[in-house]
């Protein structure tokens, strides 16, 4: 369903007098199937979020291509309603002047022209929020509640793939588990595929079927989650040992 083919991405250095560019992604290729949860694990600055922006079509790669259902994500019309996202920074994920109702409806409108309030309430219930939240603004919600609204919004457009870019990283540990369980349940219910981008190996191991270990914009290793203890590359071993030590 998702194919990332030989993707390169660089950014111009902020220095006015140089033409050099910072290479962020080097020849990244991988694919994922429908109803799969693929985890991308890497340390901060390894290029995970850049990769998510390329997959979401927010930015274009320098070289290579990203395909969803064999269609390039470059064309916004072609990826309409197919892909959705939940971001790390929930404080800027919802327009502060919009209510929960407006936020969910804006997302619903991508997949159909007619929608109703009842559907928005049902979606809120699915993510564990009551009808009372419908006309609240984001600043009246806790971090966990905002992230639940973001998840409700993400599924409102009826996507095939949801990119979860550090979606639980800024939440408390107790809420993280609740949100992961919620994501697992929704995946089953809506036959969703997740691209779970995180630096949290435990969370990735909890929810993902396969993992990709990322370092300096390159793929170090691709493994199935059940083989997590049998990683081959030194960096992967180092990463997993660090988690086990904690």
């Amino acid at each position, binding site marked *: 369903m998702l194919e990332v083919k030989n993707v390169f991405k660089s950014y111009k250095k902020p220095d006015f007098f140089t033409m050099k560019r910072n290479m962020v992604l080097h020849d990244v290729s991988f694919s994922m199937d429908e109803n799969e949860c693929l985890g991308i694990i890497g340390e901060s600055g390894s290029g995970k979020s850049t990769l998510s*922006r390329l997959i*979401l*079509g*927010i930015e274009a790669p320098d070289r290579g291509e990203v395909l969803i259902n064999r269609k390039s994500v470059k064309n*916004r*019309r072609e*990826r*309409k*309603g*197919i*892909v*959705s*996202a939940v*971001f790390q*920074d929930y404080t*800027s*994920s*919802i*327009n*502060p*002047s*919009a209510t929960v109702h407006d*936020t969910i409806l*804006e*997302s619903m409108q*991508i997949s159909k022209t007619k929608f109703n309030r009842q559907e928005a309430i049902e979606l809120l219930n699915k993510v564990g929020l009551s009808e009372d939240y419908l*006309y*609240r*603004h984001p*600043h*009246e919600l806790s971090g966990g509640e905002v992230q639940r609204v973001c998840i409700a*919004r993400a599924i409102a*457009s009826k*996507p095939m793939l949801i*990119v979860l870019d550090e979606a639980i990283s800024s939440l408390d540990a107790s809420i993280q588990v609740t949100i992961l369980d919620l994501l697992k349940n929704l995946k089953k219910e809506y036959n969703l595929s997740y691209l779970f981008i995180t630096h949290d190996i435990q969370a990735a191991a909890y929810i993902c079927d396969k993992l990709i270990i990322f370092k300096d914009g390159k793929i170090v290793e691709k493994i199935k989650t059940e083989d997590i203890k049998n990683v081959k590359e030194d960096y992967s071993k180092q990463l997993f040992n660090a988690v086990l030590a904690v």
Partner: protein
Amino acid sequence: MNLLKRLSKERLAIIPLFIIVMVVIIGVFGQNIAPNDPNKVNMALKYASASQIFPLGNDYLGRCILSRMIYAIKPSLIYVILTMIATVGIGCIVGVIAGYFQNTLDEILMRICDILLSFPSEAMVLASAGIFGIGLKTMLMTIIFLRWPWYAKIIRTAVLKYRNKNYVYYMKAIGHTDLRIIFTQIIPSIIPDIAVIATNNINSLILMMSGFSFLGLGIQAPSAEWGMMLSEAKKVVLTHPEQLIAPSSAIVLICVCFAFLGDALRDAADVRRNVDDF
């Protein structure tokens, strides 16, 4: 709509808004409301005091001051508001295009703005009055021409603040068009900023218009305008100071109303301050 709803709950906004709306209504229906012909000269009533027929007295040509005040609302206030709407409108279109798309067009538009902003506005009004002739139309067009770049720059900066927010990224990711993103996410986010700046700047525009009319560059006699009425009254400031009261009070009242309205808009635009709404 939410902003208007919140504004209606701001006590500070109700009275100034009511006064401004009333003055605008009086201005629109001025011909039916004014008690006398504003241009009818009657030298026998030169500097006459207030009476039942002439409630605010008469000017140096014996014309009814109240009628002239009412007729002056159009050039002094209504045309100023329309000028502000046109200026903000052009500034908004240019600022949103430049700020949202951030491409070569942005560079071109901003350099055009820089060039236009480098002209001193008062000098340009004088120059255009010299080229196109003295008159209200010339003055208003020149003000629009000179002021839109200022709004375009402010609005572009506001758009830059919002264009990289996750909610805009989200809309792009799920496939909404740029036009839809601009109308549903960007413009609602910048409207409070624009409303506050516009209401605060309308005062300077009213004073600017009055100032140019005072200098004889705006509306021409015998038409009435508050600034021009002040200009006429200044000649007799020592002998008939009461002639200054009506036009100066009107200018001060409207400016104070817009100042309060601007403050109220700022408060109404702050969603966090309006938590009780829900």
